[in-house]
């Protein structure tokens, strides 16, 4: 083990590296002066020959699909059968859930949680499932659960093999990473209308939308886990004569298990993030209750349904924690070891018993005496918060807009587009090299080539909207990281704190943004700062989680070594654990970035405008504005890829390794 940790310690910087960095800095400084001059003389307009006409093409493709969706072979032979298959999966799931009745579902949750994650996980899973019925409509919750189960299943079936493939081939990783970034960041509203014409309405398109959104973490974390398998272990496997297949299944996958399980957890969380949007398609589930509550401004009703969604997610999460919590469960350790066979038997008998009781009592509906009114207390709480804090929050919001967001936006929009392209390319060059410089330059160049959209008394450049969004995104990222990093570090070192934080993270990540839309607007007013707040709420949890995971993944040996050399707890954290956890923490920051960009669309629903609004219009008026929406969505994706690659390069260049 010690060999491993030495290998991953940061290399010492050689004199050559330092000199090279100095050279790069002086080039950058020179470039800055040139750019500043250019900025003053160049015109602001993007030339019209640059327009790729993506908007018109997308609009035409959508129209063609509408006209031919019942006749073209690709629909009759591919999309229709696929749609039917998804519906079939859903129907099967519904038969099982209806057969189990609520006692059976609760018992099943408990049994699975217990047998895969220990007593604590079992109790948690069952209690959360029971809680779903207590706070929300059980039957609607089962529709949501069914859609989630089918989507998570499909995401895993597709995601884990893709993750394995990307772990083994760098080229595959590069290509798939772009696709995953697109899937994660492309606003759902952009493909919402196209998905309808391909898969109809109600359940099948809802599953598709959910899978697209939930797939990336399955691939990413499988890949991350496999790539972090210590080289020594692979060598040990090889020396024992394991073939590639044995190596994968007996060494790599088991070692990567924790990361893959975290992937499963994130798949579930992401999937649940789409519930409310999916109900716009007519699924008639808990998400619909949230939407109805929003429509009638009944925050309590929406929050109760939202809480039901959260509890459902928590229940599934506890069923999927695997050994993660088992290992740390004190309760489990204190109990005498029950033979596995006996325990399995007990679990099965409990489920069967619950089903029999449910059937005997004909328990089709969740009993009314078990339900709790959470809507009214939430309503009073929200009203109290709004009345108590809105003047301070509004003042903060005004400050943020006037003195931070607006000046950054003005600066970015004032700069001629070409100057921004060159400047960012230069940042790319300094961070890593020519290849990155070309990549990020191309991203920005493509944004400039997306054309204009009608607005006001003329046309607005998508570029300008992209700069508006970029300014908000930068502010949101900085705020998120400032909040998340310290919390993640503490939770990486304290089991108790992690446990305490976990339900809040679950809620922040899964509670549909639609639930807090109304309070956010009430507190911060319609506009860009409300948008930034919405992004931050959503982006903080994954950053905390991955920071914490990174801290925990650090092998014990180097930490113990540091302690034995007399390092204090704080020194050990700062000089050993943090540097070793850097890769995971960077992944966390990277995910924060992706989350912020993925939430740009929600920000648009509270008045942030920019690209999010353009993308939303693809759903709002698909017959006129789908093309614009696609262009807006592409611009968001391009911004995301650009920011992502640059920040990742900072991660590697700090280590002193130049490629």
């Amino acid at each position, binding site marked *: 083990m010690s060999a491993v940790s030495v290998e991953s310690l940061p290399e010492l910087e050689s004199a050559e590296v330092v000199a090279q960095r100095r050279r790069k800095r002086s080039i950058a400084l020179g470039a800055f002066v040139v750019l500043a001059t250019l900025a003053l003389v160049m015109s602001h307009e993007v030339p019209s020959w640059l327009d790729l006409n993506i908007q018109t093409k997308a609009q035409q493709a959508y129209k063609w699909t509408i006209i031919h969706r019942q006749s073209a072979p690709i629909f009759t032979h591919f999309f229709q059968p696929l749609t039917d298959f998804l519906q079939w999966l859903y129907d099967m799931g519904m038969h099982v859930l209806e057969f189990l009745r609520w006692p059976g579902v609760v018992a099943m949750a408990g049994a699975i949680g217990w047998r895969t994650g220990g007593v604590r996980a079992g109790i948690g899973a069952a209690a959360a499932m029971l809680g779903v019925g207590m706070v929300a409509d059980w039957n609607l919750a089962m529709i949501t659960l069914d859609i989630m189960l089918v989507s998570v299943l499909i995401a895993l079936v597709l995601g884990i093999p893709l993750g394995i493939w990307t772990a083994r081939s760098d080229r595959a990783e590069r290509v798939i990473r772009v696709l995953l970034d697109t899937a994660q960041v492309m606003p759902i509203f952009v493909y919402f209308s196209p998905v309808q014409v391909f898969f*109809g*309405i109600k359940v099948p398109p809802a599953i598709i939308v959910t899978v697209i959104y939930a797939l990336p973490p399955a691939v990413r974390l499988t890949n991350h886990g496999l790539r972090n398998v210590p080289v020594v272990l692979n060598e040990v496997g090889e020396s024992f004569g394991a073939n590639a297949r044995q190596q994968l299944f007996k060494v790599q996958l088991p070692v990567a298990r924790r990361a893959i399980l975290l992937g499963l957890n994130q798949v579930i969380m992401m999937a649940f993030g789409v519930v409310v949007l999916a109900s*716009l398609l007519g699924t008639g589930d808990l998400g619909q209750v949230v939407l109805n509550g929003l*429509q009638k401004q009944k925050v309590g009703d929406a929050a109760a349904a939202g809480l039901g969604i959260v509890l459902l997610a928590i229940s599934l999460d506890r069923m999927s924690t695997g050994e993660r919590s088992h290992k740390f469960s004190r309760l489990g350790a204190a109990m005498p070891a029950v033979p596995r066979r006996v325990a399995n038997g007990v679990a099965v008998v409990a489920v069967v018993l619950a089903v029999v009781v449910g059937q005997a009592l004909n328990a089709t509906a969740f009993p009314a005496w078990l339900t709790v009114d959470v809507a009214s207390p939430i309503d009073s709480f929200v009203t109290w918060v709004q009345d108590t804090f809105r003047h301070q929050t509004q003042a903060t919001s005004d400050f943020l807009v006037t003195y931070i967001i607006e000046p950054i936006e003005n600066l970015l929009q004032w700069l001629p587009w070409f100057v921004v392209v060159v400047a960012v390319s230069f940042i790319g060059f300094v961070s890593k090299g020519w290849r990155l410089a070309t990549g990020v330059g191309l991203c920005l160049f493509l944004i400039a080539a997306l054309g204009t959209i009608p607005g006001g008394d003329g046309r607005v450049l998508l570029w300008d909207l992209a700069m508006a969004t970029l300014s908000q995104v930068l502010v949101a990222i900085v705020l998120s990281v400032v909040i998340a990093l310290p919390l993640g570090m503490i939770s990486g070192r304290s089991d108790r704190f992690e446990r305490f934080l976990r339900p809040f993270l679950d809620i922040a990540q899964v509670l549909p943004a639609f639930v807090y839309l109304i309070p956010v607007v009430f507190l911060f*007013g319609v506009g860009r700062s409300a948008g930034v707040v919405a992004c931050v709420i959503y982006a903080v949890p994954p950053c905390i989680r991955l920071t914490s995971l990174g801290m925990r993944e650090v092998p014990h040996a180097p930490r113990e070594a540091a302690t034995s050399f007399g390092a204090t707890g704080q020194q050990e954290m700062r000089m050993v654990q943090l540097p070793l956890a850097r890769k995971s923490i960077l992944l966390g920051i990277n995910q924060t970035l992706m989350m912020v960009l993925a939430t740009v669309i929600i920000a648009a629903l509270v008045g942030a405008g920019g690209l999010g609004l353009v993308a939303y219009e693809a759903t709002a008026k698909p017959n*006129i504005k789908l093309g614009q929406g696609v262009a807006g969505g592409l611009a968001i994706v391009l911004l995301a890829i650009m920011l992502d690659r640059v920040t990742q390069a900072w991660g590697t260049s700090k280590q002193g390794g130049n490629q």
Partner: protein
Amino acid sequence: MRTSGTKRVLFAGVAIASLLAACGSDDTSGGGSGACTTKGDAIKLAANPWTGSAVNAAVAKRVIECNLGTPVEIVEIDENATWVGMDDGSIDAVLEIWPSGHAADKATYIEEKKSVVDLGLLGPSAKIGWYVPKFVVDEHPELATFEGFKDPELAKLFATAESGDLGQFTMGDPSYVTYDEQIIANLELPLKYVVAGSEAALLTSIDKAFADKTPILLQFWQPHWKQSKVELVEVKLPEVTQACTDSAASADGGYACDYPVDELYKAASAGLETKNAAAFALLSKLQLTTDQQNEVAAMVDGEGKTADEAAAAWADANKDVWSAWLG
């Protein structure tokens, strides 16, 4: 290893349970109070997310189920998805379309592809316009018409951090039709157009304005349940002219007058007539006045009844209205 073993055992358990319960009876009838017995293929009616739409669908459901004996399924769904549903027949009809927002859908699905058919007017008409709270007009009567907003000092009353020195004009959900940007530009008003992004954000802005007695200028419309909760006054805009109508059709950016009145209409999937001619005929004849729709809506929004309960109560008391739809 362990998990797969566990799963096997669990599945075995489910299988045993299913054998044990094979005699368990299924009850499928949704026995609400006074529901009528039905059989056959369900008619699927869309209910879009506002009370009026839900009320129309519930009334139609009640009348069809109790008089034609055909079951009706209500699908709560987004407006745009409704058109796709009617296109492939997974939705049979929708009873309240606001024409101003769906000209392009009408052109594509009704006129070009002919997969959706126009079922005629529903009855009520709607109107979009500019609104300010009554307390604003009480203090500044000039602001009852657009002329008042030409005064930069008065417009500035509506300024926010987002609008800077200009007054803020707030627009809600971008899926609703809007000429506001053009109106502002063409009438040269010192206002900044800000999109709140969603109806919920718009409604919350109204609440916040009333809570703090701060002025707000927004796009809003009749009928809307919020109109009975807060006192809003419509700002007078220039009369609708032919030039405006032409400008809207050609999208030349020259729109500079009030919004036209929206005559709400119904539409059905082209396949409905063959699927169920009687239901098709009934839905074609179905009409409600604004008062009738409001009466049912009030039972839902005011008394907290479900749409189904309200529709049943209304139908029981208004046999003469709906019997005309049957003939």
